[in-house]
């Protein structure tokens, strides 16, 4: 009994699709649903673009200020003791670090839009490193040469380079697309 029926169902599976949907009505619902979905996406995009513009207005002067401060910082602070005045090799090493940092900053400066939360945090981290650097340099000027201080200065330079590289990476990252809801299939 069942064998014949099962065989029939298997062999005639495609012929069993006998009903025709009301395409007009169903499609109307689909297109309305798609428009609503698109509207939500567009609305999201508009908000995202506005946020991006606001972020750009805030971040560009912030970064520019950071670069200017870093260039003129040592001059305005009038520090007498520098690493170069302690040892020419240390001076050369510091010069190389500073040069590399300057290049990295120029690379970042060439981008038009810097509007990313992660970059903002990285810039804050750079500012914290600057504070450490200034404190250590003040110590050096007050107390004279100390190996620990010198190591901290170079450590600060290395960290700054790594953070600048992260900023470059983050700036070059393609934009993420909006995430769709995840439906398990």
């Amino acid at each position, binding site marked *: *009994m*069942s064998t*014949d*029926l*099962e065989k*029939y*169902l*298997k*062999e*005639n*599976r495609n*012929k*069993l*699709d*006998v*009903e*025709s*949907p*009301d*395409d007009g*009505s*169903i*499609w109307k*619902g*689909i*297109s309305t*649903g*798609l428009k609503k*979905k*698109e509207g939500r996406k567009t609305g999201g995009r508009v908000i995202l673009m506005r946020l991006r513009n606001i972020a750009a207005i805030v971040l560009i002067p912030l970064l520019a200020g950071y670069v200017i401060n870093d260039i003129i910082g040592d001059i305005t602070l009038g520090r007498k003791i520098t690493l170069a005045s302690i040892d020419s090799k240390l001076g050369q090493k510091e010069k190389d670090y500073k040069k590399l940092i300057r290049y990295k900053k120029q690379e970042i400066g060439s981008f038009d839009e810097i509007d990313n939360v992660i970059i903002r945090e990285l810039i804050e981290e750079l500012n914290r490193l600057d504070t450490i650097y200034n404190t250590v340099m003040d110590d050096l000027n007050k107390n004279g040469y100390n190996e620990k201080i010198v190591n901290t200065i170079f450590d600060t330079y290395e960290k700054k380079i790594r953070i600048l590289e992260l900023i470059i990476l983050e700036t070059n990252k393609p934009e993420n697309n909006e995430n*769709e*809801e995840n*439906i398990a*299939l």
Partner: protein
Amino acid sequence: MDNTGDHTGRIIEKCIDGDIKAQFILYKMYSKAMYNIAIRILNNKMDTEDILQESFITAFGRLSELNNEKALGSWLKRIVINNCISHVRGNRINFEDIEDYKFESGDDHFELDDSVDPTIVHKAIKELPDGCRTVLVLHALENYKHREVAEMLGISESTSKTQYRRALQLLNNKLKHKIYVN
């Protein structure tokens, strides 16, 4: 040379870009098949139309996730069936206990050959009780194993098998009656 794949691929790309004409073409390519799958499970025109709308909206939104355009039909079918099952489970369909159901022997065997009108069979399937109809559709027509059917419907594998046997017997009786009457 078969260009069907390329053609479908182009339609899919356009659909992903939000081209409404391409989306309608894709809908038309599969609407009848998907509608018939859904109505056999749900046995309700309005619910079927709702599920079809929901499924195509979901599919268009997730089309970029489809890795193989040749799998479009089965991918779409899976979305439709998943939505139907969610609906069925939401309605708490009772898979009545038929452990003690006495299945009839094969004495009332009748010939069911290819000359039988598929419309009669389709109609008879829709007349089956909800629970066993869903199992029959999933196992016999959509090729899901009993283990998979059980998982999808939240029932045991043995319940799926029993419901299936019952569905076959009921369908057999209905068809016998319909064919002899006709």
